[in-house]
């Protein structure tokens, strides 16, 4: 787990969030049947409720926590993908969205490469990485994230656009 860049209290929360997310995700998976989906946003919020008392003792606000939890969510997803890969012995790839283009013209990218690109983004600009974690990996809407970050939605979108072009560039290399 990439806890090296976190202060000890946050690292602790990160670890707790990771475990909790994993636990809830597993429970959700057991409940859901094959066609259902798991709401990752709900997972992150539930984790907040569950870990609240603990978080308060280390003096961490909700915004900060959600950012950490979103990152933990990314880790949960990536780890899960990794295990899937180990099981299937093939690379798992994600098809990029293709609203306008036909399905054939859409490149597929490797989820592990996305993970690597995210690590590079973290090194470049932690805030951009946080926006991606919140939006992409825990599925929060822009207005929610904007409120959390305390900036206008329009500014947030600008950040998101920068992060997105970075990831696309990294993934297309």
């Amino acid at each position: 787990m990439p806890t090296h860049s976190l202060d000890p209290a946050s690292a602790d929360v990160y670890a707790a969030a990771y475990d909790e997310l994993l636990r809830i995700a597993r429970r959700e998976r057991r409940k859901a049947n094959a066609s259902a989906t798991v709401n990752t946003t709900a997972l992150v919020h539930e984790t907040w409720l569950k870990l609240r008392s603990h978080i308060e003792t280390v003096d961490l606000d909700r915004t900060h926590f959600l950012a950490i939890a979103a990152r933990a969510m990314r880790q949960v997803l990536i780890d899960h993908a990794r295990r899937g890969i180990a099981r299937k012995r093939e690379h798992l790839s994600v098809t990029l969205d293709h609203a306008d283009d036909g399905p054939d013209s859409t490149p597929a990218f490797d989820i592990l490469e996305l993970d690597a690109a995210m690590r590079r983004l973290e090194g470049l600009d932690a805030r951009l990485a946080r926006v991606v974690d919140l939006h992409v990996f825990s599925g929060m809407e822009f207005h929610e994230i904007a409120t959390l970050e305390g900036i206008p939605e329009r500014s947030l979108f600008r950040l998101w656009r920068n992060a997105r072009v970075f990831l696309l560039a990294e993934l297309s290399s």
Partner: protein
Amino acid sequence: MNIRNEDWRELLPLFEHLSEAAPDTREHLLDELTRGRPQLRARLLQLLDLDACGQSIAHSVAQWRERLLLDADQTPPPTRLGPWRIVRELGAGGMGQVFLAERADGTYEQKVALKLIRAELNDESAIRRFLDERRMLAVLDHPGIAGLIDGGVDESGRPWFAMHHVEGIPLPEYCTKHQASLDERLRLLIAVCDAVAYAHRHFVVHCDLKPSNVLVDASGQPQLLDFGIARWLERAPLPDPHSATTATHALTPGYASPEQLAGEPLGTTSDVYAIGAMLHEVLGGQRPYAGSDTRVADAVQAQARGEPPAVSLLAQQHPGPVAPRQLRGDLDTIVSTALRHDPAQRYPDAAALGDDLRAFLSGRPLCAQRNSPRHRARKFVARHRLAVALSVLALIGLIATTAIALQQNAVARRELVATRAVRDFLLDIFRGIDPRETNDQIDTRLLIDRSAANLDNALKTQPELAASFAQALGEVYFHLAAYDQAETMLQRALDLTRAREGMQAPASAPVLRILAQTLAERGKLGEADAALASARAIDSQHADIGARVDDDAIAADLAQLAGKLDQAQKLIDAAINSADSLPSSRRATLLNQRAQVAAARGALDDAERDTQAALALFREQDGNDTLDVAENLINLGVLRMRRGDAAGAEPIFREGLATYQRRLPSEHPLLAKAMSNLARALDREGKSDEAEPIYLDVLAMQRRLFGETHADVATTLNNLAVLHVGRSEYAKARTMMQAVVDIWTRLSGARHPLALASRTNLGVIEREEGDYAAARATLESVLADYRSLPDMAAREAGCLDQLGTLDRYEGKPDQALVRHREAAALRAGLKQLNPLERAAGLVAWSLSESAAGAGASAREHAIAALTLLDSVKAQSDPHYADALVARARAELALHDIKAATASVQVAAAVRAKHFPASDWRNAEIELLEAELAAQRAQRTSAITKAAHARDLLIAQRGVNNPLVDQAKRLLTREHAGAP
């Protein structure tokens, strides 16, 4: 694009600026921002393109994200697990999937029910439940229980296990179908009681007994299945000794006791209720609350109205398979006692119920009438309270011995009894079948590691118990070849014992013995000797004959490892001479050990005699298909290999290997060794293509099992290097042999016999590769080491011959002859020596003599070598061709063209069998033919053959090679027209 961070810091603000600008002003803005920097412009354009594509990472990841967490359960079923091929799914539960599987290797026909955990690996409670089931099955070895056959983990680390697959029909259905008589019905239920009683004695409560879990097989034997929700009794709260944690789901209301429906703790009496319900069904034609027992809520209501009426009354109202008058009286009593709502009023366990059924059949009075059930249950509690109290001392899940063994509750004896019981149980898990059948697998290791970790905590106040546990765990780790953990545990056991009972404590001797073996396995021979010396000092005052024999045998082992073969022989002789009174299996293992010592000394006849004797003892005891027999067969094969009889060894290896494959897990040190031996035989028979893939499998398996620095890895690498030498792939062989030298040196020092042997091999490979300087340095240093060690004459002679050959390669045949003569003198003093080794020495000598022009003695020595090889029937061995080549060269030197031609022909035939036509060894033959042609003045033929041979030799051996020199000399001579 792979852009550096600094570049991104520049690019992103520019991109942001551009993307925010109105589309029609973008182009202009871009020009302005990137004036004079075309690369920057290109990059920014690329970013704008990517941005404009409308590809949304967020959306696609969102889809993936939501789906990903769900797909764990949708992975396709495995096609193979360990040695088992999956045939089809039999069913799936919350915990795992059950498959029908069969042996994939076709060694013999066997079908199993194979259960694979379905939960995520880090779901600890799920794993614990799963492993609990496996562990219960491992403990339960009874003809009426579908027992454990095999277990392991799949490629992603999920544990699985295989059980006997029972083809049968549910018990009540069986009775109906066969129109079973009353006696037959009762006997079937008695068989069920026996199996359940066996489980109860091992502190396992089934918790889910019902017809679909009690199948009657073709032989009429009922078999219990599915311990999926079974529970250990040990985790019982103190007030109620025979209760287990509640099974909250998956119960079948019709056979579930009131306490189970209420979600209360379960005990042996809950199983009694379930058997009672089946008895009711089999005798009365229906379940106790038939019609209102499909849903839990209904069943609870039905039970709340009271206990079921007597089964004979039921039979009166609804005529069933048994006449009411047969049921009235005793059978009514038995059924209703089993079905009491208050667990304390039922039979205390399945054994008691079975006893009363037997009593009924033989007309004896029932217990249920003699003794009120409540009274008996009280007695049962009293009898078991001690066991329950003691189980609190036990480590997680490790106490499960029979309560009966703990009857006397004298406080003074408590610790002793507990120690022995718990320890025996722990060892039984691993020894029950055969210690070698356990493996370094997640399930067993998880259990042991956890116990080891808990040792201090759980037994803080019980140092004696802790010492005993540490010893047991150390032994288990030793059996699992986890020698570092074994050492830690044994050292701990030793410290604890000594702290309590002093340095000379008799109890410390067994610990010291295993510790000595452990230390030796870790290559710490000095410490091992010291540990064993302490054990011997203690045993010389106290111990029985068995302990002293053990001491001698281990001392012999250590002496052999240290290369002190005479001493090893004396010690093992002493052990065998005093072992007459010991069990035959112990004598057999001692004979085996003596065979190893004899083999190490080159006394192959003695070794084979001892091995055959041990084999006979083992076969007499347990028949053919046992690990001991397999081990001895493989030893016998190894001895044949030493005699040079690879073709004779191969079938024996295969026979032993087949047993290993049947009886061992799919990855196991012994299996790896057996495969390695087979590969060696195949390589020696010239089938290196068959041998290489086996070696590579073995190497991969051993590295997984042991890591890199391990004797077995070194041995396999050595054999593989030899294979590459056979194929003239010297660079590969040299790298591997260097690795072998490194491993042995790290394990036991550069002067250990095995390190020295591998260094000799390295020198030979260097020489054959043409690196004479390196070869000389290596071989000279080995020779110096051999000369400084006792008992090394045979090895020293071998090394001298290799140096002699090196001298010959370097064009110094006279210097070579000095070496060979010294080697021959050393061998003359050795009575028993591997004939192949002796022959190889003679061949090397002969070749040097021919090179030095001493044709007569060269022929004599070559013929002596051939005679030796004939005597061990090694006519198809590559060594035989070498000896023929030596004889041909001698004959050439003597200008006996006719004899030389004949020798060359035979040598060509032998080599053609072992090596492809393009191999340099055949080129060597061709070169000899060229020499013969030259002698016969057939110049053209001589030149053609010599040129062809030269090209092949250079291609495979490089230019730095005596055979190439020889070919060149011949060509120069013939081209010049010299005779």
